């Protein structure tokens, strides 16, 4: 076996998905929660290492194609790793590993002991699903892995302590299944016109039939389906409750990754499969998405301002941040796409940090109502500082990651000469200031309520991952070379521009 190990290098794309996938049933065999946690953590770490290796490989030697079953591409399923999905894979695995680190402590108080093992299994499955969606080069395979990640997501969300978690999970299930079925219809229509399911093959064969009404319908269905998963305004209704009432770990993981995967799909379908000219010239996608993105930013941010449950607040903020990504996407220029990709990465960093910190608050206080935050700045200084830095990053204060992506977004808008949109984007940041500051004010400038029991700082298992993320938040806000370079390269390759 050892002799074969160097050869495994070739198999990295499939190992990326297979390792967490195989780990899930093994967890069921391991049975006891503690070893399962360790095992899951190691698995996720391994997946992270693989994604780093993959990214390295892609950046140096270009697209990797891996034929599953040894069958050639349009007949068998192909894994196709280019810069875009290597980047997204890295986001998913890194966040997953860091979040998982805190999982054991966090779920201790949120999930009954007998279900911990199931929790880790579902977590790994959900990770598998996302990785599978991103890695694959086959349209139908996307659907299958989408369902793996969605099903585990429904179950994970329903494990929340509050009974509303169940209702939220149900709503998400209905919306998610409709979305998946729409995608299925879209893939079916595409298949009917081209006879192939392979993305690369589709992208070559679709232009021949691009003018047909069927392809237009296929496009519409795929996009609507993906947007349902994406929680793009006005299809976002499932998201706030799902994020707010899920166990904290789940929220931290999903807020950082699930919507990113959906955005990846959106980019993949519009740019790679249907192609730029079809997506943006034949169809008025640009205006539509720009409008929806902006509406999302404003409506979600405004709703966030009025929330009393802090998880709900940041859930709405997530919808608003999705709006930013969509605006960047709708510009359909290299800079705009770079901004979107950067924001995917950056938003993952800040939101996972914030939600993990909220998990720590949940761990100590048992709830995350605004009124519980009175004077928490003193009692849990590290946790609250993390939330504040994460919040500043959401606003887009310089030297945090949020600034970098906003900078690119503005540049992209100015390139197109869309001044009013740029102003609106900035106004959106002002709304972010308001909702972040409400929390800061309560936490730092209000005395604790008299009936509130003083609490200690969160345990180390929280502080370490939270601050890893926060430091990453600042580091990538200052040293932007890595993230910008990768995002730019990915964007360029999607536009077919050679640097």
């Amino acid at each position, binding site marked *: 076996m050892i002799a074969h190990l160097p050869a495994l290098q070739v198999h990295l794309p499939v190992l990326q998905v297979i390792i967490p996938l195989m780990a899930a049933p093994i967890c069921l065999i391991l049975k006891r929660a503690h070893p399962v946690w360790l095992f899951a953590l190691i698995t996720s770490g391994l997946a992270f290492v693989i994604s780093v290796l993959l990214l390295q490989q892609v950046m140096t030697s270009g697209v990797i194609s891996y034929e599953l079953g040894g069958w050639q591409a349009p007949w068998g399923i192909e894994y196709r790793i280019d810069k875009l999905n290597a980047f997204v894979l890295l986001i998913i695995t890194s966040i997953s590993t860091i979040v998982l680190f805190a999982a054991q402590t966090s779920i201790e108080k949120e999930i009954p002991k007998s279900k911990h093992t199931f929790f880790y299994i579902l977590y790994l499955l959900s990770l598998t699903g996302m990785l599978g969606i991103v890695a694959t080069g086959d349209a139908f395979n996307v659907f299958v892995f989408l369902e793996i990640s969605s099903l585990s997501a429904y179950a994970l969300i329903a494990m929340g302590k509050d009974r509303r978690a169940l209702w939220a999970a149900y709503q998400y299930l209905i919306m998610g299944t409709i979305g998946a079925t729409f995608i299925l219809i879209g893939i079916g229509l595409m298949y009917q016109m081209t006879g192939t399911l392979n993305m690369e093959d589709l992208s070559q064969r679709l232009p021949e039939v691009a003018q047909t009404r069927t392809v237009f319908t296929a496009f519409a269905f795929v996009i609507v389906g993906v947007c349902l998963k994406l929680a793009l305004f006005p299809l976002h209704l499932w998201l706030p409750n799902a994020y707010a009432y899920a166990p904290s770990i789940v929220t931290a993981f999903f807020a950082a990754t699930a919507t990113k995967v959906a955005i990846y799909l959106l980019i993949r379908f519009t740019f790679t499969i249907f192609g730029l000219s079809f997506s943006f010239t034949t169809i008025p996608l640009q205006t539509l998405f720009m409008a929806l993105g902006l509406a999302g930013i404003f409506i979600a941010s405004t709703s966030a301002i009025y929330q009393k449950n802090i998880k709900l607040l940041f859930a709405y903020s997530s919808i608003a941040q999705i709006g930013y990504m969509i605006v960047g996407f709708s510009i359909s220029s290299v800079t705009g796409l770079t901004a979107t990709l950067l924001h995917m990465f950056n938003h993952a960093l800040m939101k996972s940090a914030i939600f993990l910190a909220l998990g720590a608050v949940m761990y100590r206080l048992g709830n995350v109502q605004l009124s519980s935050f009175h004077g928490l700045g003193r009692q849990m200084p590290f946790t609250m500082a993390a939330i504040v830095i994460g919040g500043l990053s959401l606003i887009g204060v*310089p030297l945090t990651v949020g600034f970098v992506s*906003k900078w690119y977004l*503005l540049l992209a808008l*100015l390139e197109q000469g869309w001044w009013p949109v740029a102003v609106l984007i*900035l106004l959106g940041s*002002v709304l972010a*200031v308001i909702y972040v500051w409400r929390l800061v004010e309560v936490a730092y*400038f209000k005395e604790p309520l008299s009936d509130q029991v003083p609490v200690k700082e969160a345990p180390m298992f929280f502080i370490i991952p939270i601050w890893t993320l926060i430091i990453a938040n600042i580091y990538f806000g200052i040293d932007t070379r890595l993230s910008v370079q990768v995002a730019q390269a990915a964007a360029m390759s999607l536009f077919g521009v050679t640097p």
Partner: protein
Amino acid sequence: MNLSLELMLQLAIVVPFLAVVAILVTGHNPNLREGVTIAACLILIYLVVNLYQGLALGATISVLWWELLPGLTISFNIEPLGILFALIASFLWLVTTCYAIGYMRSHQEKNQTRFYLCFALAISAVMAIAFAANLFTLFVFYEVLTLSTYPLVTHAGTEKAQKGGRVYLGILLSTSIVFFLLAIVSTWFVAGTLDFKLGGIFSADVDKTLAGILLVLFVFGIGKAAIMPFHRWLPAAMVAPTPVSALLHAVAVVKAGVFTILKVCIFIFGLDLLSVLPTTQFLLYLAGASVLLASLVAMRQDNLKARLAYSTVSQLGYITLGALLATPSGVIGSSMHIVIHAFGKITLFFCAGAILVTLHKSKISEMRGIGRQMPLTMLAFFIASLSIIGVPPAGGTWSKWFLMMGTIETEQWVLMVILMLSTLLNIAYLLPISFHAFFPDLIPNKNQPNKCSNKAATSINKQPAIGITEAPLPSLIAIVITTLGCLILFIYPQPLFELATAVLTNRE
């Protein structure tokens, strides 16, 4: 010590920051904590003075910290305007710290560690702003300054303080995010660089309308300069303790604002371009209106600090106006006014604080005859008033003079009239305070019987001159120093003038 100037430049930014850490560590011991602060002040002054000398010897110093994106750097250099600002800020930090020690202790404020901590952080940001080599660096620390001063504004922690803090943060952050950032990104987009360069960074054939819009965005975006539609934060921040007000109004925040405007005018647009932009005229009138209106509002304020706040708004208008005049005289006038106004206004605030601490009065109508109890304080108040008004023997004379010159050079007669009028208004709202303090019976106050609910006020009327009760000693020393500053600037403005003229001379 033979530190290189580059190192000193960095130290000037880092020392206050280190002070933050030291204050945090020594927070439990007030004496040690304040000792640390003062030590940091002294080191900072030493550094800045050294830098000043270095500049005078013709050294060009620049430091690159980090390249965020290609071409977008955090870097610093020194030039006369920055040195000017750094000098005044570091010096007044020392003075304010002295004052604050007396004020805070006698007022028995809570959270004093947080106060000194944020104070030092703010100064660190101010130093970085002063030495910023490009607009981006400046913007970064501009935001740091906003955030670090927020806890100072809401220091009292009361509902009112929080409301004030919200307005403060709301206006400053939103203007900076919506307008300033947009302007910066657009500048970057149009010019391809953000480095400060004498004569501007825009190419000559830049679209004038676009540049004009950018100018408006800059002037509105720099909310700290408190140009009229976005001035609300300044009076709102009045809830802060007096040393904070002094810091905000005289040293750090507003000066950072007008400093930024000057920097933008001189080094981003360049005076040549500025004078031909279509929107300059509009902004000039806006600044003029700001000057006049704020003065008018100031007259109606009974709260001393609020009156001073509106006075600040009006004075900032001068500086903006001078910068926008786009002539050497205007720029010199503005630069000098930054310093001179700083000394004048900080004295006024110190006095207001001293009155509050010793006599617990904050309303002007209650201050009749206090000159007998606090003669020194009120004398200082008088001299500082003169400096603000701009009459000898106080420094304000010179800056007003150059500003007037600027309006005449550019034949902006309307603005000249505005300046004159505002001087009259200054007299009308500042001088009566000191007059009443010393000669309570000179003009009968009609309001007095209605407003005598305050016990202290009535007691003084009944028993005049019970003796001299001055402010705590550290505060008093601070007041005296700044008052002397006002006077010295009149008698010996030469170095200041040279520095201000050097702003426009190309050193390369």
